[in-house]
């Protein structure tokens, strides 16, 4: 049981002393009567009709949440109710989460969106209540069982609009579940609601366009294989410019020992590409026999934010490609939701991958028994093991121009329980590392505010609010320890934390962990290093005057 659960006495005190929508302190109003309004910055654009058509999803049309007429299909209520019934039958967890909330309020102030907006419907308990209130109306037996909990309402268009607004103001981060004495995971409710909203054409272009691209060409941007290869080759040239070392990645090579898969943000975006350069240097340093696929060219899986079926389909290419290339196992790059999909679903969804072997590090001989089922190892575990066994030549002074802190990505921290490996690596590759306050890291980490596919530009204001608790914790270490570098192991974080920092903490830059590994690696045949992988000067290495150990 989570050590963060409040004690009963604390809950009673909290319930008695704090004002709460659950106690009806809102002067004769029901909580659902509190107004909400779609305004610029608080919704993501719906998917374009051509994207919906590409995917064969229902109700392609042009519309905006600010429109009076959402052009819903006839019988939309029945479509949603049937879909809900089907899922309640299929997923016992969902039924349990809807039935077992005791309204203790322990989750109320744990959601970053509530903390950033002050909007009570962003309290996890009320977010779930948006659905429960309909569920109670349609399943009268449930109300009898849950007697004492008032509030049943019909599924009308206002409720639907509310669902659309508030289930895209949940990043499925699961922070609330850490504090729930009943173990309720509101993220699962969000996942279900978003899935059924697709059935009446209520969706998000920032999620579905990458899904459609992945479906067609294998990666979020829809980049063709030859461009994918050219991008990485261009990074190889950059590495040579900075280090003097020519690394030699291979593509679609049959018979390689390991298939390496990473989010495409590492191949296309700034600052992700510097993390990619770090991987390439690392693999060269240890002489790894690996290959990169231009088909499984995306570790991310926005199908996860769409529907179970779509998640499964997009994930399948990882095993397909591993089988086609005849590799022994898969190594995965830094990503958040990719790991939630791999860790929690891949084996049962698209496995068992009996054609692969239990992963063993070819350098240290370490067996990754935790990856026995999926046959896929997280790069942080892989690198931590290399360091632990003394297989890397590292000079942490090469990162002395950075004063770092570490952001735990929700999916890797809460979804996989991985807390120590990235910290272990970080402490070996740099000399200045400071933790943010305890209630903002590890399993209590705050979301970047942009996870689960709401990283859209048009949603910037909401993202700034949702990301505020994280930014505030960074501000704390910036003021106390002069931290200027936020290190993370998630591609969405690498994309979404830079604007968050530029807004709330100007002067703080965002780095991938393996970018810092790449900076610190002492490569055979390298030239005198004066710049890091971003071509920023390294402190103490000016004029190439590196002080050797």
């Amino acid at each position: 049981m989570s050590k963060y659960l409040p004690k009963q006495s604390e809950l009673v005190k909290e319930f008695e002393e704090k004002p709460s929508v659950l106690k009806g302190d809102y002067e004769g109003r029901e909580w659902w009567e509190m107004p909400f309004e779609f305004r610029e910055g608080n919704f993501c654009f719906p998917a374009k009709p051509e994207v919906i058509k590409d995917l064969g999803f229902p109700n392609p049309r042009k519309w905006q949440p600010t429109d009076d007429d959402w052009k819903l299909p006839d019988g939309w209520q029945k479509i949603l109710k049937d879909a809900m019934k089907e899922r309640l039958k299929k997923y016992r967890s969902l039924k349990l989460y809807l039935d077992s909330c005791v309204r203790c309020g322990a989750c109320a102030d744990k959601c970053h969106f509530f903390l950033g907006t002050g909007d009570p419907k962003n309290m996890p308990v009320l977010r779930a209540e948006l659905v429960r209130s309909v569920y109670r109306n349609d399943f009268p037996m449930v109300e009898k069982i849950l007697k004492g909990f008032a509030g049943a309402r019909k599924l009308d268009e206002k409720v639907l609009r509310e669902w659309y607004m508030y289930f895209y103001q949940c990043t499925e981060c699961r922070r609330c579940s850490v504090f729930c004495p009943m173990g309720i995971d509101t993220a699962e409710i969000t996942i279900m609601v978003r899935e059924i909203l697709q059935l009446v054409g209520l969706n998000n272009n920032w999620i579905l366009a990458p899904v459609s691209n992945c479906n067609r060409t294998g990666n979020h941007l829809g980049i063709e294989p030859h461009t994918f290869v050219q991008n990485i080759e261009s990074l190889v040239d950059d590495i040579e410019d900075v280090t003097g070392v020519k690394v030699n990645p291979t593509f679609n090579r049959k018979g390689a020992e390991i298939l390496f898969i990473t989010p495409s943000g590492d191949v296309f975006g700034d600052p992700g590409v510097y993390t990619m350069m770090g991987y390439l240097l690392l693999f060269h340093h240890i002489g790894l026999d690996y290959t990169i696929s231009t088909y499984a060219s995306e570790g991310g899986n926005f199908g996860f934010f769409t529907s179970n079926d779509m998640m499964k389909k997009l994930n399948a290419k990882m095993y397909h490609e591993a089988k086609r290339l005849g590799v022994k196992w898969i190594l995965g790059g830094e990503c958040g939701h990719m790991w939630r999909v791999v860790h929690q679903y891949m084996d049962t969804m698209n496995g068992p991958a009996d054609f692969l072997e239990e992963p063993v590090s070819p350098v240290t001989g370490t067996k990754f028994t935790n990856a026995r089922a999926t046959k896929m190892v997280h790069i942080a575990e892989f690198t931590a093991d290399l360091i632990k066994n003394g297989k890397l030549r590292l000079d942490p002074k090469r990162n002395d121009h950075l004063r770092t802190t570490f952001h735990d990505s929700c999916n890797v921290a809460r979804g996989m329980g991985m807390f120590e490996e990235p910290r272990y690596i970080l402490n070996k590759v740099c000399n200045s590392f400071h933790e943010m306050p305890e209630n903002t890291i590890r399993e209590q980490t705050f979301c970047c505010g942009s996870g689960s596919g709401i990283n859209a530009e048009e949603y910037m204001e909401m993202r700034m609010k949702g990301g505020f608790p994280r930014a505030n914790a960074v501000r704390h270490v910036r003021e106390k320890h002069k931290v200027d570098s936020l290190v993370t192991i998630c591609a969405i974080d690498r994309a979404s934390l830079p604007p968050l920092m530029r807004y709330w903490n100007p002067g703080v830059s965002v780095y991938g962990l393996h970018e810092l590994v790449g900076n610190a690696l002492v490569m055979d045949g390298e030239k005198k290093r004066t710049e890091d992988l971003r071509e920023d000067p390294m402190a103490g290495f000016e004029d190439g005057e590196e002080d050797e150990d």
Partner: protein
Amino acid sequence: MSTTWERVIAERRHDILRRWQEKGLGLFAEKMSPATPMGEAMADAMEMILDGFATGDDLPREGISRLARILAVQSFRPSRSLSVFTALRDVLLASAPDRDAAEVCRKRIEAMTFEAFDSFMEHREKIYQLKVEESRDRMYMQLRRSVS
């Protein structure tokens, strides 16, 4: 700044701050709790502004900027955001010892409101700038290829 206000605020700082912060947190749809990170950040900024009001002739720009940064991303309208300064004026005027002090207060709050308006707009512009920068970062390699 007149020593009168320095004295008044030194004497009644706690009460003035409490009343003003109450109004500031009340800007939100349902009152923002002072114990939240957002509530604390607002309270800190308001404290900086009040101390600046009390002690110097220079505008408390850092406090104003911090408050405007918070308000510029909220879903309520700009006029509602800036009403936080009228709220401060009302709280302070209730403690004004004489007409001269009241006049000083009005002028000072007016200058702070203009400064806050500029800062609010700068932060709104920042949001648009972030959108552009983010799109550029996302397409970094494509853009690089297109110019090389």
